[in-house]
């Protein structure tokens, strides 16, 4: 596994994209296909379910290191990561084991799941003795189901494409959907000569948009652009080929089981059709909340009651394949004509109606109505744009509404993990309820590194009480918290749950008594909560 460990270290030690690609290329050049397949599996963000619970790993580690639990806790709090803590506590420096990576995973690690505790202890203990520090760290990440490395799927694909002389979109196509980490798969993936015969279930890579960056004036004439509402649902590719239907989410999950009514509607599509669109919870002519959609996704088994309470539709806005022909290179306007022949404006699969506006300014005004339509702004797409691969600038833009914002007071802080293990980076914010502060949201992101250091200092200097890893602080710092959606919640003390909360800015100019109150938040709720949910 040394080659893989070294790859992990190289990726960990640089934050430069080119160096990451170079490290992966180097790995894929040297590794045998059966090992490379497993590496690819992990690099792509797949992880087998937890093989051994972290609690068990911890027990084993404290026993072998000869330290009490409290000392382990001290160490883990400082390191911020259990896998790394154990590697620091146990490694003896040497490296006496270099099993082929695929054997390590398949023959040694995966069988540990559910194995006898004594067997787990013997196997893991042996690896901990034989591997060096980096090896133990990577091994622990693999067995605790927490393996993560800072490369995007796109970067992995780029490395494969460059190393094996393939176009990136071919690699993306070949990596879509479920695949088994076998030598056979890796050979197929990297074979430059293979006639690409796509299996019927295989989706196309999604074309994704960036948020708009420039002045609208730079986009040129409004006449060149198709304007659509930007829906807040589940992006979905619907495939109908050879009589079968496949619904793919952007996370490359097959989601047929969660949305049977869309599957049924898609069965009516002509063979050799692939649509791109958004699944939305929709009842009585209104879009419901995104959280409702998640209820559909999270259920193992859908009840009739749930199906009736949260019905869904597919709002489709593009067609990638028609009559078994890949039409992604045709301009959007022509694809739209094809789409209009296939779907109407009613029904479970319905076509998105483009919006019209006399000018960019008028459009901006219309954008303010987004929330009342249950959408989050606009998608702007050039009429002459092809359907591209991945996130691209230029042809497609998303133009989102400004988030909700609330001024709240910092009341708790906790240390981050990984890169920020020693800094207080995870915050809890509160708003006023009469003269008491009630917890309103947690937020982890939005500050600059410099601000994080200053907040960290503030937390250390103004701690009131310590509860394990959490500290309560003097309630004096006000932050503007932005979020995307708001919903009633019995589980939250404030009575509301917000979506994607993050720190918008640090309001050092504000005193804590100037922070918002719970009434303000309930007013937001009244204003924007879809009637259907009240």
């Amino acid at each position, binding site marked *: 596994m040394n080659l893989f460990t070294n790859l992990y270290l190289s990726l960990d030690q640089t934050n430069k994209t080119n160096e990451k690609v170079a490290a992966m290329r180097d790995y894929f050049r040297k590794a045998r296909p059966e090992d490379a397949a497993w590496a690819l599996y992990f690099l792509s963000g797949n992880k087998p379910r937890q093989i051994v619970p972290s609690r068990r790993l911890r027990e084993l580690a404290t026993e072998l290191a000869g330290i009490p639990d409290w*000392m382990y806790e*001290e160490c883990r709090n400082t390191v911020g990561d259990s896998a*790394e803590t154990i590697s620091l*506590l146990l490694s003896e420096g040497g490296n006496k084991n270099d099993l082929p990576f695929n054997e390590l995973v398949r023959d040694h690690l995966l069988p540990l799941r559910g194995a006898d505790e004594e067997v787990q202890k013997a196997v893991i203990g042996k690896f901990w003795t034989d591997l060096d520090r980096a090896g133990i760290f990577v091994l622990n990440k693999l067995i605790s189901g927490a393996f993560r490395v800072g490369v995007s799927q796109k970067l992995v694909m780029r490395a494969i494409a460059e190393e094996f002389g393939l176009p990136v979109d071919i690699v993306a196509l070949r990596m879509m959907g479920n695949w088994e980490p076998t030598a056979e798969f890796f050979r197929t993936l990297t074979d430059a000569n293979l006639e690409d015969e796509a299996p019927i279930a295989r989706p196309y890579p999604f074309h994704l948009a960036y948020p708009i960056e420039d002045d609208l004036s730079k986009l040129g004439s409004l006449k060149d652009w198709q304007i659509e509402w930007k829906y807040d649902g589940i992006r979905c590719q619907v495939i109908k080929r050879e009589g079968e239907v496949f619904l793919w989410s952007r996370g490359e999950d097959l989601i047929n089981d969660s949305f049977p009514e869309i599957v049924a509607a898609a069965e009516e599509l002509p063979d050799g059709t692939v649509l791109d669109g958004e699944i939305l919870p929709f009842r009585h002519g209104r879009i419901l909340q995104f959280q409702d959609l998640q209820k559909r996704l999270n259920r193992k088994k859908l009840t009739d009651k749930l199906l009736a309470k949260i019905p869904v539709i597919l709002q489709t806005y593009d067609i990638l394949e028609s009559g078994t022909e890949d039409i992604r290179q045709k301009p959007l306007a022509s694809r739209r004509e094809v789409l209009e022949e296939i779907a109407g404006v009613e029904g479970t699969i319905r076509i998105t109606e483009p919006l019209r506006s006399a000018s960019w300014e008028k459009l901006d005004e219309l954008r303010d109505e987004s929330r009342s339509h249950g959408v989050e702004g606009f998608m702007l797409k050039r009429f002459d744009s092809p359907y591209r691969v991945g996130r691209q600038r230029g042809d497609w833009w998303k133009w989102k509404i400004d988030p909700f914002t609330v001024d709240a007071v910092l009341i708790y802080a906790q240390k981050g993990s990984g890169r920020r293990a020693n800094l207080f980076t995870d915050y809890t914010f509160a708003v006023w309820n009469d003269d008491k502060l009630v917890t309103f949201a947690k937020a982890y992101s939005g500050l600059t590194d410099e601000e994080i250091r200053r907040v960290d200092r503030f937390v250390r200097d103004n701690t009131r009480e310590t509860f394990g890893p959490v500290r309560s602080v003097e309630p004096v710092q006000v932050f503007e918290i932005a979020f995307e959606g708001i919903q009633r919640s019995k589980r939250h003390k404030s009575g509301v749950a917000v979506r994607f909360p993050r720190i918008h800015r640090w309001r050092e100019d504000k005193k804590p008594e100037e922070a918002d109150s719970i009434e303000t938040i309930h007013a937001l709720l009244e204003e924007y909560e879809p009637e259907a949910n009240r």
Partner: protein
Amino acid sequence: MSSRQELLSLTDSGIYCPPGDFYLDPSKPVDVAVVTHAHSDHAYAGSNKYFVSEKSELLMKMRLGEEAVLETRRYGEEFEINGVIVSFHPAGHVLGSAQIRVEFEGEVWIYTGDFKLTRDPTCEPFEKVECDVLITEATFALPIYRWTPPDELSRQINSWWRSNIDAEKVSVLFAYSLGKSQRILKSVDPSIGPIFTHGAVENLNKAYRESGVHLPETHYVGDIEDKKEFTGGLVIAPPSAAGTSWLRRFGKHSTAFASGWMAVRGARRRRALDRGFVMSDHADWPGLIEAIDASKAKRVLVTHGFVDPLVRWLNESGKEAEPLK
């Protein structure tokens, strides 16, 4: 025990010895200061008189100013301050660093100052001295801190330097200018390429050389006019130079930091460094435990760093220990 006055105790100005009326590593100007070593968190200017180890004299002058009144003493040489017997013993931390032994009415205390057990060719090795009460530092007092052996460290730094040369990059290694920088100079293979130093490091190199420590040839960065000369070079600079425009002159370069804190990935990544070398001038966990055991102290007082974990660990191993007060 606490009813009686302690021989050494912590005050606002530093560790104080009442019968001798002197301070150890005072952080404010006092009358008589006994100083372990020349790092800025131990040697403060402004006191009337300083007792320092002979080997630290030049460094202390740089730190405390030419006008400071220094009384130098050899390691092991006993001297009296108001009837209290004091002596310096090598601490293995940096050139001239000392543990301070204090004896009064038959009771012996040791204050370790900063120390390490790891071999270091730029200073005298740590001396194990027995005592009744030990005041120890605890900078790295957690069992996760276990240092890379010196030979392995040299190998790592050399190979990083070589691979940067292959990638046509200048190697910039950040290290504390007093002690760590010189230790690195003694650890690397100078045949790999030229070595350059930041002004802060070069000043201290001069003091080390004058104190009799042989260092490989170094070039002060400020003297280099043609940037091409940096090609293939290793630059040693204090951590404060990281992320500054001072680095621009080197063109394409790779950065690394040599510090005990680099043992933890999070600390390494937060600094956006290309590499971290785990190299400390403080004792690691096994080193601390070894030194404490060797002192045969009946009582251990802990200061600076992971104080509570070390105290609790010692208590649970049946030793009397508490935070230094």
